[in-house]
């Protein structure tokens, strides 16, 4: 089941786009703010995390929209497969196409923004735990707005408040890693958010989808 969804999604080859967006957002900062290396090293954890968050957010809107418009979403809701699993598979596929490559690319960004080498581990770990949570939360927003004719920006409105805790702990973890503090606590919180999300979010997404389609 999961493999099917993944397979079908692979074809979209959207893979590389969020990545390049991620890279670009990160380059916007030194350009717009200040190119001074010590300054950049200071803000790097936050900037990378904000960029990751925005990249996820941007890719979120299209998650269910095309399914809604061409009627495949109806078919998903009418299938005898448990909706929980189908939704989870869809979110997982989304994460593998955005969050995961983003995490893998993050060290490159770190170098570009002069992030000290000690921070790299924390950066990758925190993103690894944080980005799936972002995908899960984002999918709730996407499911809620899919039936509306506007979407697009509305979704960020719904989702961003929920993203903020992830952002705070994620960037705190990286900053901790840079200054040599123990990361365990932050990562544990990120992990807890992820597991909570894994259990609850698919339920919310499923319910939201049913409501949106029934409207």
């Amino acid at each position, binding site marked *: 089941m999961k493999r099917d969804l993944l397979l079908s999604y692979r074809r979209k080859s959207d893979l590389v786009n969020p990545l390049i967006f991620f890279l670009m957002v990160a380059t916007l900062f030194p350009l717009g703010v200040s190119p001074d290396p010590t300054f950049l090293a200071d803000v790097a954890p936050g900037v990378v995390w904000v960029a990751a968050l925005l990249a996820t957010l941007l890719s979120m809107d299209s998650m269910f929209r095309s399914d809604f*418009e061409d009627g*495949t979403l109806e078919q998903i809701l*009418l299938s005898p497969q448990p909706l929980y699993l189908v939704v989870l598979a869809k979110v997982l596929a989304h994460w593998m196409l955005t969050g995961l490559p983003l995490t893998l690319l993050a060290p490159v960004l770190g170098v570009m923004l002069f992030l000290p080498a000690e921070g790299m581990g924390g950066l990758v770990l925190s993103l690894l735990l944080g980005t799936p949570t972002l995908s899960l939360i984002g999918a709730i927003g996407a499911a809620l707005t899919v039936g509306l004719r506007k979407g697009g920006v509305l979704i960020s409105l719904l989702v961003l408040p929920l993203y903020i805790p992830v952002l705070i702990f994620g960037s705190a973890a990286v900053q901790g890693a840079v200054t040599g503090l123990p990361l365990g606590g932050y990562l544990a919180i990120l992990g807890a958010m992820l597991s909570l999300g894994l259990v609850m979010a698919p339920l919310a997404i499923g319910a939201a989808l049913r409501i949106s389609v*029934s409207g």
Partner: protein
Amino acid sequence: MSTPRLKIDNLFCERDERVLFEGLCFEVNAGEVIQIEGQNGSGKTTLLRILSGLSRHFEGDIYWQGEHLDNCAQAYRESLLYFGHQPGVKAVLTPRENLQWYASLHPEMDLTKLDYALVKVGLKGYEDVPCHTLSAGQNRRVSLARLYLSRAPLWILDEPFTAIDKRGVAEKEALITTHAQEGGTVILTTHHELAMGDKIRRLNLDQLAGTL
């Protein structure tokens, strides 16, 4: 059978303060084909979406083989094939991939007949081109190929013949007749003149909604 396949009891639906139907009661048995008639906007699609469980904007009760739909949602979905206004075809995937995807959602489907089904709907040679390069009718044919693969007894078809050419319509009509003869149930809407004549039961929504 004494319990009807599908029993609709006292269905009421209004949209934007327009009553579409009220006190709608009917039963559908195995082997029956029911055509919902009515002019544009009379509520055919709304009714079919309610019956399929997609829409919940209604009051009243629906029973599937004697059980209330709320209590047997899972079993009902297993025995249902729904074909809506949007054909549910992903434009970036090929016809073959689209059907495989659908089959992965419906494990009881017979995938060995996939190639046969694609030939049957006239898509031979188009199995592996992305659907957005297909014509309007070909896209709907991709979705109609599901009819050849499905083992679900209940088919709910909303204007299945839209954009299909005459030969295609004749073939699909034959398919529907066969399905009914084998004990299946079909509920459909169409503005085409069906050649099936008296083998079909008609239900006119215009009279119910008083739009005529």
